[in-house]
C-alpha cells in the first residue's frame, strides 16, 4: 500500500526546477513540434543533446527518469512494431505470409523509436521537475485569456489539482476494498456473473468513498475561506525570470538547428 506513487515529481532546486511552469509548458509544446518536424537521424542529434542537457541541469537521477518513463515506453514499443510491419520500402529482409519486414520499415521503426523516446524523455522532464499544483497553476494561467470567452480557467485548474491530489488516496482505498472483498471470497476470475458481482462490490464502496471525501473536502475548503478565484494570491506567484528567457533562447536554438538540418543546409 505504501508503495504507491503518483506523478513523478522529483524534489529539487535546479535551474530547471525553478523555471516558471508556464515556460515549461510552452517550451515543452515547442519541443514537441520541433521533434515532430525532424526528418532524419541527423536531425535527432541536436534533440538528443538538448534532452541530455536538460537532465544534466535538472540533476534528476537517470534511474528515476527511466522508471518514470517506463510505462510510456510500452506505447513506443507498439508504435515501433506497427511501423516495422507497415511502412514498407526498399529491399525485403524477411517475409512470412502477409507479414514482411523491409529495409525501409526497419529504418522507420528505429527512427520512430528514437524520436518517440526523446519526446517522452523531454515531456517527463517537465513532470519530474514540476509539482502537479504548479503545473495546474501554469495551465490555469495559460488558459486565462480564454476566460473572457467563458472558459472557467481557474475552476479547471482547481479540479485538476484536486483530482491529482486524490489519485493516490483512491488507489489506496481501492486496494483496501479489493482486499476486504477478496477476504469474503470474491474472485475476479469467477465467470461473468462473479465478475459483475466483484465489480459492483468494488465500485460502490469506491463511489460512496468519493462522495464522503467530497463532502468533507468542500467543508474543509469552505472553512479555509475558499471562495473562487477572486482576490486570491499565491504562495509562489508565477513570474518569468532570467532563467525563463535563457530556456526560451536554448529551445529556439534547438528549433533553428533542426530546421537547418531538415533543409539540408549543412
Amino acid at each position, binding site marked *: *500500500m*505504501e*508503495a504507491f*506513487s*503518483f*506523478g513523478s*515529481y522529483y*524534489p529539487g532546486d535546479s535551474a530547471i526546477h525553478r523555471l516558471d511552469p508556464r515556460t515549461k509548458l510552452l517550451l515543452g509544446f515547442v519541443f514537441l513540434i520541433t521533434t515532430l518536424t525532424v526528418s532524419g537521424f541527423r536531425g535527432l542529434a541536436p534533440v538528443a543533446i538538448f534532452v541530455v542537457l536538460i537532465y544534466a541541469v535538472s540533476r534528476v537521477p537517470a534511474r528515476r527518469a527511466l522508471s518514470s518513463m517506463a510505462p510510456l515506453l510500452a506505447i513506443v514499443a507498439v508504435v515501433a512494431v506497427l511501423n516495422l510491419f507497415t511502412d514498407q520500402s526498399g529491399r525485403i529482409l524477411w517475409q512470412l505470409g502477409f507479414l514482411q519486414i523491409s529495409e525501409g520499415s526497419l529504418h522507420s521503426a528505429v527512427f520512430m523509436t528514437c524520436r518517440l523516446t526523446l519526446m517522452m524523455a523531454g515531456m517527463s522532464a517537465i513532470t519530474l521537475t514540476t*509539482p*502537479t*499544483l504548479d503545473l495546474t497553476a501554469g495551465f490555469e494561467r495559460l488558459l486565462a485569456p480564454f476566460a473572457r470567452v467563458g472558459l472557467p480557467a481557474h475552476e479547471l485548474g482547481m479540479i485538476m*489539482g*484536486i483530482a*491529482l*491530489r486524490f489519485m*493516490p*488516496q483512491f488507489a489506496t*482505498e481501492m486496494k*483496501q*476494498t479489493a*482486499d*476486504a*472483498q*477478496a*477476504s*469474503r*471470497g*470474491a*474472485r475476479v476470475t*469467477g465467470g461473468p456473473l*462473479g465478475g459483475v*458481482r466483484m465489480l*459492483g*462490490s*468494488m*465500485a*460502490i*464502496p469506491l463511489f*460512496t*468513498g468519493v462522495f*464522503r*471525501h467530497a463532502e*468533507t*473536502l468542500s*467543508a*474543509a*475548503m*469552505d*472553512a*479555509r*475561506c*475558499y*471562495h473562487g478565484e477572486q*482576490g*486570491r*494570491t*499565491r*504562495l*509562489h*506567484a508565477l513570474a518569468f525570470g532570467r532563467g525563463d528567457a535563457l530556456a526560451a533562447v536554448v529551445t529556439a536554438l534547438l528549433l533553428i538547428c533542426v530546421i537547418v538540418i531538415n533543409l539540408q543546409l549543412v
Partner: protein
Amino acid sequence: MIECRGVSFSYDGAVPALDGVDLNIEDGEFFCILGGNGSGKSTFVKHLNALLQPDAGTVCVNGMDASDPELVYDIRSTAGMVFQNPDDQLVATLVEDDVAFGPENLGVESAQIAQRVREALKAVGLVGFERHETHALSGGQKQRVALAGVLAMEPRVLILDEASSMLDPRGHKGLMKACRALHDRGMTIVMITHFMEEASEADRVAVFRAGRVAMLGTPEEILTRADELAQLNLDMPASCCLGMELRAKGVPVHAQVREVDMVAEIAQTYAERSGAGTVGQSSAPQSEIVGGTVSASNEDDVPEPVIELSHVSYSYSLSARERRRWRKRSAVADKSNKQALWGNDPSSPWALRDVSLTVRRGEFLGLAGHTGSGKSTLVQHLNGLIRPQEGSVRALGLDLSNKKDAAAVKAKVGVVFQYPERQLFAETVAQDVAFGPHNLGLPQDEVDRRVESSLSRVGLDLSTVGDKSPFELSGGQQRRVAFAGVLAMEPEVLVLDEPMAGLDPAARRDFLELIDRLHRDGLTVVMVSHSMDDLANCCDRIVVMNEGAVFAEGTPEQVFAHADELKSIGLGVPAAQRMALALAEAGVPLRRGGLYTVESLADELADLLIGRSDGSSNVSDKAKSETVTREEGC
C-alpha cells in the same frame, strides 16, 4: 470570544440536531465538548465558523455576528477548524502549498504567505517538510499539516472536531502537544473528543445530549459524576475510577481527573499515614513491579496452532534481486554489528522482517504497534491476501504459498478490516451479508441460514434490518453488518483490524462485548488495537510490533511489565498500570506486581492505606457502595 444564544438547527426541518444551545467560550480558554455519536457536537462547532447558519438563535464570534454574510471570511479566519479525517482536508499535493491555501484565499501577499507557512509549520513541528508530498505522510503528520493550514490564517480560535480520533497513539500525542503549546501562547481551543484523558486537561467541559448542553463545568465537576456520565454514554477517566473506588473502600481521597494529581494525592496520603504509623502491613520491602509475577505458561496443554508464521519477511519496494542483496549484506553485517542494520532504520525498505508468530486455537491474541510498524502487512499475511516473499505461513494445516490452499484459507480466516462499513455495497443488508456465502458457492437455503445466524450473532435481527439499505443504518449498525458479512463465511479465526476505531465510548464497550462473546463461542480472535486498555482487558496474549519486527510477545502481564521499553517505541501501558508505576516511583510500596486493573490497584491501595479493609471500614456509606457497582463498567 464566542457567544451562542438559543442556537437551534435542523438538517431536514423535522428532527432538531441542535435544540436551543446557550454557550459562552472565553478568550484563551481550553474548552472541551463531549457527547455520544449523534449528540449534535459536530453540528454545533460548524456554527462557530459559519459553515452552518442557525435556524434560530445567534452565534457571535469575537464580536462578529456569524449570520452576517459580509463577515463570513473574517469569522472563518478567526475560528479555524481541523476536521476528523486527515485524508479529507488536504487540498494540495505538497505540504507548503496546502498550508498556504488559507492565506492565499484571504488574499495575503506572497512574501507574507511564505512567512506564515514557515511559522505555522514550526508551530506544529514539521519544519523541513515543506516540499514533501501530502499523501506520503503518516496520519498524525497529515493532521498536523491540516493544523498548520489553519494556523497560517492566524486564527484566534482553534476548533478541533475529533481531530485525534483516527490517529495512533504517537500521532495523537504529537497533535495534543502542538495544541497545548498553542493554548499556552493564548489560543482559544474548542475540542470535540471521545478521550476522557484529553477532556481532563481542559479548562471547562460541556457534555452534549440530543442537541442540548446536558452538563457544563470544570473537568473536576463533570468527569467525577459517574452515574450521569454513564447515562450519557460516556466513561470516567481511569484516575477518577480509581479515586471513586478508593473512596468506596473508605480511603479518604478525592477522585482526581488527572492521573498525576491522583497519584500525587495517594502518595501524599500514604506518606502521612506511614508517618503516623497507621498504615497496614506496609513494612515489607518495596519490590519491583517491573518484571513482577510472570506465570510461565503451562507447556502441557498448549492448544494446537491454527496459524504459524515462520521467518516471514516482506517488502513493498524491493525487487527479488534487491532482496537477495539485502540478505547477503545482512549476513555479513550479522557477524559484525547486527544492530546497525536491523536497528531503528527509518529508511528500511522492509514492511516485515523475519517475523515468527503462532496463533493458537481458541486464544485471543492482541497485536499492538503504531502505524507503519507492520501490523497491517502482518494481518494480510494471515489469510493469504499477501503471500510471504520469504519465510512461510501455515494456516489450519495448509501452506499459504500454495495458491489453491490460500484460497481455501480465505474462507476459514475471516478478516474485518479497519472501518469495515466502508466496504458495504449491496442494495439490502441481507444481500450484503450473503456476498461471502454466495462466493463460496453454497446453496440458497444454506446462504439464508448463514445470513440469519450471522446477523443474530452481531445483535441484529434479519426481519427488521434485512431488507433495509445498509446506507440507511447508523454508523455502529453498519459496522455490525460488516462484521456479519465476515462471520457469514463461518471462519474459524477472526482477525480484526482496529475494530473500535472512531466509535464513541458506549459503542466501543458494545463492540468489545460483542467480540468477547464471539471469542467465548469458540472463535480464535486476533485483534489489532491502539488501545492498551482494551488489549489488557481482552487478550490472552499480546504481540507488539515495531519497525516490521516482533518487539515483544507474551501475556498482558509480561508485555506491560516493560513500560519503559514500550514507551521508547511510542506505545503506552494501560491506565491502571501507568498509575501503579507512578505510585511505585512516588514511594508507595506496591507489592503485588504483575498487571493491575483499576479494581486490583484499588484493592491493594486500600489494604496499604487503611489496613484490611473488608467489612470494617467501608460500611459507613451506602451511597458509595452503589458507586462501586457503576465502577465495574470503567
